[in-house]
């Protein structure tokens, strides 16, 4: 009976799951760039009444003067509920403090989606998940670009006539200021320093061709991955006309310290290219942002975007508050990323008076054990050395993989299809996922025992735990794994707790160390983690955006095999091949070649058990059901977070469901400074 039940249950799930998930056809991998948007002039533009009124009073220039010559037209194809109407407010929850508005100096607006309000990149990686062929990101402030023959020169055309929210024109000077005077200035802790812009030992050069054209010169041909550095989180231009007077290079009286903090959170309204302009801020409580009258996106009818007149950001401290508030109907979206909340959210979503829908769109996160292979970094004791030598033996990794009952673990943690066994490397939602390339060493205690015996491990004292063989440095001691887990990753902690008894069954003792993020990262940086449980959203999904983390291409990556002082590191043969493949991907432009390469990587990875996969998970979203136009199938994370990928500017709420705005009619106005 016990054995039949899971199968029956599994069948039930499959039937019901398809009913839940496929409400609207997903946009994942469906479009060409031209299906999503284009840059063109429309015969007629429409704006909300409040702005019309301001224009009539002469407080604002008319809408066609505020828009660029060819604004970005968002196509109706990506608007699943059609053209919207103006009004209401978008309600976001933010769990980190707002540091300031000088994002080129490394100050965050608070993460959690607040970046959408004010940061706009040259390109838009957030749209990429919709692309059929996701090699290059979607244009944004850079409307198009051409590569030179050898791929070492890239000419970019900027959106002509786009204006900052104070009405000043955005030009190539802003980009050059952001690049040279912020990113490359070593006194300024920008998100990307010179290191990120150096290719093959050559610092990338940027020159201004004309007011609306810039040219990049790289140290290698077609460095596509550098394009991802030109998105919202990389090269998001800052307003030179606002910031230059605080910069020591332009103002001899200014200091770097002063420059970094020249735009503190309470300095409002912000000068931005984004859809909403923060106008009110109270620390630890909220930010209110009003629509940017100069925003440069319109819909096909000519309505200036965004549809929401306002964005309200509630400040809090913990992710769970966001979930609870979405359920209570006071926040518009959240991620669902621990099995512990899945049932709860699904159940609440099914109530007739529920404020939200729960969406799961496929496996997009993974958990694995990362055995530390480094012999030259973070080795402090005899035991460290012995453990790493052991991890380096492929037989051990296979034996460990055989020892783990993944079915049992996933079933007991969450008995539904939202989590599933995982072997390592990529997961299903990744555009490069290739199930045929993956080698599995699925649960098989016999094989595991056999391999352990080969390695000399035997349970001598009869306590059910195998001991190290005589002659080894740890002779007679129990085979013990020290597993570090980050405390905040509830799902990983859960998994660790579930793993312990299964490992014990296989004769392996395990000690869980649940530690704070900062401690974990400090240990990771110094290469002292033994075999942590690691949760991954990026490498298993969109590895192209963080290629260097994938294998031994820098001294500190992969984190589980870092090089020692002087770059000393004994690579496995398959790792050397991995390194070459990753390096080749850095400049690869052909979609099919990229796919092929990733197939080989997945094969190498899983065949050699580079990491020991545990389970993969469908991170989901809870989205307020009043919202229209959330693109069907928007992944919680892929290239960018859901916060960005849901295309906030095109969201709207029908008139009869709209809620009152906090500052109705208010238009951001700037005092002369």
């Amino acid at each position, binding site marked *: 009976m016990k054995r039949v039940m899971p199968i029956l249950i599994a069948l039930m799930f499959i039937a019901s799951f398809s009913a839940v998930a496929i409400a609207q056809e997903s946009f994942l991998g469906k479009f060409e760039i031209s299906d999503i948007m284009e840059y063109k002039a429309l015969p007629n533009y429409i704006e909300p009444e409040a702005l019309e009124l301001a224009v009539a009073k002469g407080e604002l220039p008319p809408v066609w003067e505020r828009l660029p010559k060819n604004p970005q037209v968002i196509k109706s194809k990506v608007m699943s509920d059609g053209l919207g109407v103006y009004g209401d407010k978008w309600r976001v929850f933010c769990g980190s403090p707002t540091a300031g508005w000088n994002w080129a100096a490394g100050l965050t607006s608070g993460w959690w989606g607040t970046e959408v309000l004010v940061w706009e990149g040259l390109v838009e990686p957030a749209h990429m998940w919709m692309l059929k062929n996701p090699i290059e990101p979607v244009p944004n402030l850079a409307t198009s670009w051409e590569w030179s023959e050898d791929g070492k020169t890239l000419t970019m055309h900027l959106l002509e006539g786009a204006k900052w929210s104070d009405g000043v024109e955005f030009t190539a000077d802003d980009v050059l200021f952001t690049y040279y005077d912020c990113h490359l200035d070593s006194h300024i802790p920008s998100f990307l320093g010179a290191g990120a812009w150096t290719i093959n030992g050559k610092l990338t050069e940027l020159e201004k061709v004309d007011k609306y054209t810039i040219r990049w010169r790289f140290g290698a041909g077609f460095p596509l991955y550098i394009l991802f550095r030109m998105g919202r989180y990389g090269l998001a231009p800052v307003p030179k006309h606002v910031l230059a007077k605080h910069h020591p290079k332009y103002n001899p009286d200014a200091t770097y310290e002063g420059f970094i903090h020249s735009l503190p959170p309470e300095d409002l309204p912000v000068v931005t290219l984004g859809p909403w302009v923060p106008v009110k801020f109270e620390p630890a409580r909220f930010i209110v942002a009003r629509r940017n009258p100069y925003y440069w996106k319109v819909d096909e009818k000519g309505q200036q975007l965004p549809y929401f007149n306002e964005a309200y950001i509630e400040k809090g401290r913990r992710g769970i508050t966001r979930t609870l508030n979405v359920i209570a109907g006071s926040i518009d979206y959240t991620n669902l990323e621990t099995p512990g909340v899945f049932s709860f959210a699904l159940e609440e979503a099914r109530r007739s008076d529920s404020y939200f829908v729960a969406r799961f769109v496929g496996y997009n996160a993974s958990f694995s054990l990362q055995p530390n292979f480094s012999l030259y970094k973070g080795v402090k004791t005899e035991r460290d050395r012995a453990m790493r030598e052991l991890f380096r033996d492929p037989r051990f990794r296979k034996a460990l993989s055989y020892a783990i009952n993944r079915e049992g673990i996933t079933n*007991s943690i969450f*008995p*539904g299809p939202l989590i599933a066994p995982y072997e390592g490397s990529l997961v299903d939602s990744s555009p490069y996922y290739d199930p045929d390339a993956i080698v599995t060493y699925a649960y098989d205690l016999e094989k595991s025992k056999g391999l352990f015996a080969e390695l000399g491990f035997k349970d001598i004292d009869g306590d059910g735990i195998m001991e190290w063989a005589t002659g080894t440095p740890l002779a007679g001691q129990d085979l013990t794994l020290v597993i570090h887990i980050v405390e905040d990753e509830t799902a990983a902690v859960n998994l660790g707790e579930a793993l312990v008894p299964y490992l014990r069954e296989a004769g392996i003792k395990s000690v869980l160390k649940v530690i704070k993020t900062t401690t974990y990262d400090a240990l990771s940086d110094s290469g002292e983690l033994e075999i942590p449980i690691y949760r991954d959203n990026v490498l298993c999904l969109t590895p192209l955006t963080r290629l260097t983390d994938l294998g031994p291409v820098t001294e500190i990556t992969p984190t589980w095999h870092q090089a020692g002082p002087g770059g000393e590191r004994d690579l496995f043969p398959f790792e050397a091949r991995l390194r070459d493949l990753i390096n080749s991907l850095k400049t690869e432009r052909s979609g099919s070649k990229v796919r092929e390469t990733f197939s080989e990587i997945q094969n190498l990875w899983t065949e050699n058990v580079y990491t020991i996969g545990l389970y993969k998970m469908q991170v989901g979203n809870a989205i307020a059901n009043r919202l229209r136009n959330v693109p069907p199938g928007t992944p919680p994370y892929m290239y960018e977070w859901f916060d960005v990928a849901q295309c906030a500017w095109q969201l709207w709420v029908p008139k009869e469901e709209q809620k009152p705005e906090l500052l109705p009619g208010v238009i951001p106005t700037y005092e002369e400074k």
Partner: protein
Amino acid sequence: MILKNERSRKKNSFAEPVKGEAYIQLVWRKFKRSKTAIIGAILVIIMAILAIFAPFFSPYNPLKIDHRASFSPPQRIHFFDDKGKFHLRPFVYNLKLELDPQTWKRIYTEDTSKRFPIYFLVRGWEYKPFGIPCKLHLFGVAKGGSIHLFGMDNYGRDLWARIMLGGRVSLSIALLGAILSAFIGSMVGTISAYYGGITDMILQRIVEFLQSFPQLPLWMALSIAIPATWSSLYVFIAIMMLFGLLSWTPLAREVRGKVLSLREQEFVLSAKEAGASDARIIFKYLIPNCLSHIIVVLTITIPWLILAESTLSFLGLGLQPPMVSWGVLLQEAQNLQTMGRHLWIAIPGAFIVITVLGFNFLGDGLRDAADPYSRR
């Protein structure tokens, strides 16, 4: 702080000299008369027994994980079966697990097809009191049945067993911390007063220094500094030391005041005259005469440390899982939604309240009793 004032206000009433058996009888008679003190003592004794013999009272291993029974609710004890028939021996029904096909939520219902009578002194999981293997448990049900009186936690561990075990940790950390604090406090107080002069000066400066820190923030800061990589035992000892080393100052001041007056008394002076060593005078005459006071303060410190431990652990700064204490157990209740749907995970909170209440009753009763000449 107010407590301190309250205590110092009562300081003068502790000035009676050597206490013999008559004194103890007097105290006991006075103590007996206070109903609340007796209730407090009973509560404390019950909690102590539950904690000391935790495995005996737990039909299940508190560390055993059964994910499939995650958040299964408390089982009810029945006397009447589903047909309304009365059974003298109480019984439970097993819980049937079903899954909601849409949300994959586990739904538990009573399976009334089979009764599981509760038996006493049964054999169950093995534990080792003092290294001797033992399988005896106070109660349990026949094979095939289960009895989870307080339900299961997130990982499917028996909450009843975990509360018993947690009580052991919470009570012992508070008790050891309080004893350490009482020891240091009485030693420092006595030495300070007995030797006086520069010794007194230095010790009093240390006391003042320690008292200048606000407790809660200081404890939070110190407990977060305990290395995350330490083993549970070390963390336990570290927190215990923290409690002991930081909470002795009020006692030291009071003992000092008391010894200052004792120092000049006949019996101490004559002992000195007779050439008794300092150590002898301290341990034979001074400390015993403060003992009733020290015990009272000890009793008041324990509940205070229980509250401190549970607060720190609840905030994730004190003891950490896999260590179990009442505060650690309540970490799970941190998420309101978890607690709202599985109310039983808040039961450890009730144990904290009851225990602290018991100690407060007891301490109050002892304080009044130790001062038998007062009229209250």
